[in-house]
């Protein structure tokens, strides 16, 4: 069964995506890295997303190897610059 993952874009990545969020459909068993690959394959500015960005899964820093589950919220995190 495919799963739908809500994906958030911030700062420079949102500028590339042209939108703050997207719903992405992936096959069961997909990992965060598959989500990133799927987005990059959309082409256009999405292709300029880095292949291995920092990511957060449900608001915690995560690994690209983490397996996704239905209802997950994934954020692509550009290099951070607080302070």
């Amino acid at each position, binding site marked *: 069964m495919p799963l739908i993952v809500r994906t*958030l874009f911030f700062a420079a990545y949102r500028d590339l995506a042209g939108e703050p969020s997207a719903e992405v459909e992936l096959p069961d068993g997909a990992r965060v890295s598959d989500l990133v690959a799927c987005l990059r394959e959309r082409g256009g500015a999405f292709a300029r997303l880095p292949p291995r960005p920092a990511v957060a899964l449900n*608001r915690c820093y995560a*690994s690209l190897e983490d397996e996704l589950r239905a209802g997950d919220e994934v*954020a692509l995190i550009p290099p*951070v*610059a*607080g302070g």
Partner: protein
Amino acid sequence: MARAVLVREPIDPARLLASVEDDAHGAALLFLGVVRDHVAGRAVRGIRYEAYEEMAADVLGAIVTEACRLLGTDRITVEHRVGALAVGEVSLGIAVSSPHRAEAYDASRYIIEEVKRRLPVWKQERYAEGGEAWVEGALPPAGPGRGPRP
């Protein structure tokens, strides 16, 4: 007692310092991050801060909790501003008090370094001559991994 928040309104340094007052503490320390008017020789008129707000609130809270545990003081208040700031405005305020100065300096330094390293906040510089750019920041640490499906 410790408090860590993202704010949209201007940060009031005096209120921040007052929030950590403690008669048993001999050291009170205030750190302010301030928007400066130039970067690499280029004039800046302001900075816009953006946050992944839900996560940033959690991460800022975790950083302050770590600082409390490491340094044995729970009198810490941290405010990080988001939105459009002009030159001279305060983007980050860290107030700490502790019995002695060493813990206060250490806690304050720990918090600012961890904010730079892992708080999901971004800044866009706006240049005096026009144009704007996202500041290339620090690559945050990867998480521990979620493990196998339950």
